[in-house]
């Protein structure tokens, strides 16, 4: 009896992440076949590198987004944070490798301040995350539009290497992103803050009653999310070689990252989900984009496919994750467990 329950629990916890990777695998297979029909190799280094490059920027942002979603909030300001940090980094570096460190630190510092502001507005002023970060995004976007009219600054060679170097087909940027993912996983599963993030997202009141200072995890999640968006901005600066006031919004990273997180099996209402799942979601998006690009799908239809995939995939999990009580009476074999127990007793 206990062992079956244990197995049930094990599956219940893993299943959504598993489905994500099953969907990813399915995408991979379908993709490989489709790509092969055009006479290409899906697994060629160049293509793999292209897919992985596609995961890194969105990956950074989606990891951060996972944290804020887990804590029951949202971050719609990420694209603007990415743009802003790309500008700060490239501006400060001004093509001098001596300025790389100050550039990175200043950019991430600014991102952290924005995250802190988001966190304080959400946790302190009790403004819904949607509104707080929508507002913050607008504030930054106004600032960017007013003060920057085009690309700005220049990333020095050494810094541009980050975006251009790879270990075999695996871009360094992807590795850094995966490193951040591992850190985020450690944070979530192995630290108190992580436990508290789940708790606050699961039930704010319960968390409070259990003695958690609920503001802390919310603010932490927001700061980390902004920092990761800042990382994305740095990566963009490295790849573009310049800062740009529009790179973030060009990517549509706000909604796309939320979609990737939910695609990865995280509950939009918080409290449940994993970074692993999110990475799966990001991978699915990256592969989908890659396949459609190789297939030269009409750009407008790409959005149609994306939209449909998001909804269909999430519909699959949503149906799975409705926790049902174990049936006591099946159709054919009632009483099985009861009889066994009687024998045992």
């Amino acid at each position: 009896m206990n062992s079956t329950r244990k197995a049930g629990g094990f599956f219940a916890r893993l299943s959504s992440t598993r489905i994500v990777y099953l969907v990813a695998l399915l995408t991979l297979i379908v993709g490989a076949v489709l790509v092969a029909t055009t006479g290409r190799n899906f697994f060629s280094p160049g293509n793999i590198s292209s897919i992985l490059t596609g995961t890194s920027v969105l990956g950074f942002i989606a990891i951060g987004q996972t944290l804020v979603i887990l804590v029951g909030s949202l971050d719609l300001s990420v694209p603007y944070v990415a743009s802003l940090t790309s500008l700060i980094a490239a501006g400060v570096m001004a093509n001098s490798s001596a300025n790389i460190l100050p550039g990175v630190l200043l950019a991430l510092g600014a991102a952290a301040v924005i995250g802190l502001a988001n966190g304080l507005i959400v946790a302190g002023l009790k403004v819904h995350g949607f509104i707080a970060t929508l507002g913050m995004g607008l504030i930054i976007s106004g600032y960017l539009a007013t003060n920057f009219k085009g690309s700005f600054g220049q990333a020095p060679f050494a810094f541009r290497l980050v975006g251009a170097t790879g270990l075999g087909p695996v871009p360094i940027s992807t590795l850094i992103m995966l490193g951040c993912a591992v850190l985020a996983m450690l944070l979530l599963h192995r630290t108190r803050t992580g436990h508290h993030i789940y708790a606050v997202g699961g039930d704010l009141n319960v968390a409070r009653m259990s003695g958690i200072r609920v503001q802390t995890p919310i603010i932490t999640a927001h700061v980390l999310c902004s920092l990761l968006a800042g990382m994305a901005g740095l990566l963009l600066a490295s790849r573009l070689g310049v800062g740009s006031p529009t790179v973030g919004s060009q990517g549509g990273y706000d909604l796309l990252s939320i979609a990737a997180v939910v695609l990865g099996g995280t509950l939009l209402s918080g409290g449940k989900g994993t970074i692993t799942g999110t990475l799966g979601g990001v991978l699915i998006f990256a592969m989908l984009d890659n396949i459609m690009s190789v297939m030269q799908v009409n750009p407008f239809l790409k959005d149609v496919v994306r939209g449909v995939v998001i909804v269909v995939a999430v519909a699959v999990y949503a149906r799975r994750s409705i926790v049902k009580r174990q049936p006591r009476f099946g159709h054919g074999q009632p009483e099985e467990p009861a009889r066994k127990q009687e024998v045992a007793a």
Partner: protein
Amino acid sequence: MSRTMPPAGAAVLEQNRAGAGERFLRGLATPGGAVFLLLVALLAAIIVANPSFGEPESLIRFIGRTAPIAIAAIGQYFVIVAGEFDLSMGSVVTMQVIVAGNLIGDDDAKVLPVLLLMLVLGALIGLINGLVTTLLKVPSFIVTLGMMLALFGLVMFWTGGAAQGNPADSFRQIGRGGIQDVPVFGVIPYPVIILAVAAALGFWLMRRPYGRTLIAAGDNSAAAALTGARVWWVRTRAFMLSSLAATVSGILLVGYAGVHPSVGRGYEFTAITAVVLGGVVLGGGRGWLLSAAAGAFALESLFTLLNFLGVESTWRDTVQGVIIIVAVAAAARSWQRRRRGSALPARAEQHRITATSAKPAEGTEQGGNGY
């Protein structure tokens, strides 16, 4: 049941409610009421900045041009008060605008059938949004995000990104024309009338059983389901109302602005902002329809004020961002104050509800509050 429920009348019902004036005052003290004060303040500021704005002709024109976004906000209100989001609204507006442009053309005879088709399309999109949300249990944020992408992509694919042209003038008159030669106002734009009708219908609907059930479903859907409400259908209809509102906005915008694929872009966020500015709580169960419409007017007034003040248009986003954060933070504080009890409506004493129209409340032996 005659004995458990002694007969009573409307008088007794009213006796157990606060007076209309008090209810009005209480209402003003909520975020949903405060937005009207904010609106008045903004309008006053605009008139100070530009006195000609205060003339009836200008005002009515302003109302006319704000009608599409106000109607969209009303539509979005239904969805938000039910605890959901509709991010597909902007794409629906765009789709309808392009449908009108491509299918009507210069042919006056097509106006009615296409108008009908647009309404059907709007209802259908809402139906899909609603059914996927309620039956497949996909969060509406995701459903409507998917719909937003897919719909816009489809429309662009279908039209190759550009509409054939503006539709027949008779169709555009809906959004552009008006009743001429009205005293005081000069012209009363049709959008003003359509907005008035939409607001009145919406207001009426929210007092109907449907509206109350919708709020109840937004507040506590499990409880609503157990009162026999078909929560899935109640919510689905909210999505349909939202898409229909977007359709009406689209019809007005075709008239007001003409056909272009960027008409409607960002409408979902503007509508949500307006609704939230109107004191409606994201997550559902709280807020008034008219406040949502007032939120749209407040937002538009703010932009107009910025234009009149000559603020660089790039700063507009920033100001909007600050305003919504401040407004919602203030609203949150106001709800907190109510909970803590320093606000007016909560302070009143509790007493027994009475069914006889005779005496005031202190009917219990002990008197005082409660038992």
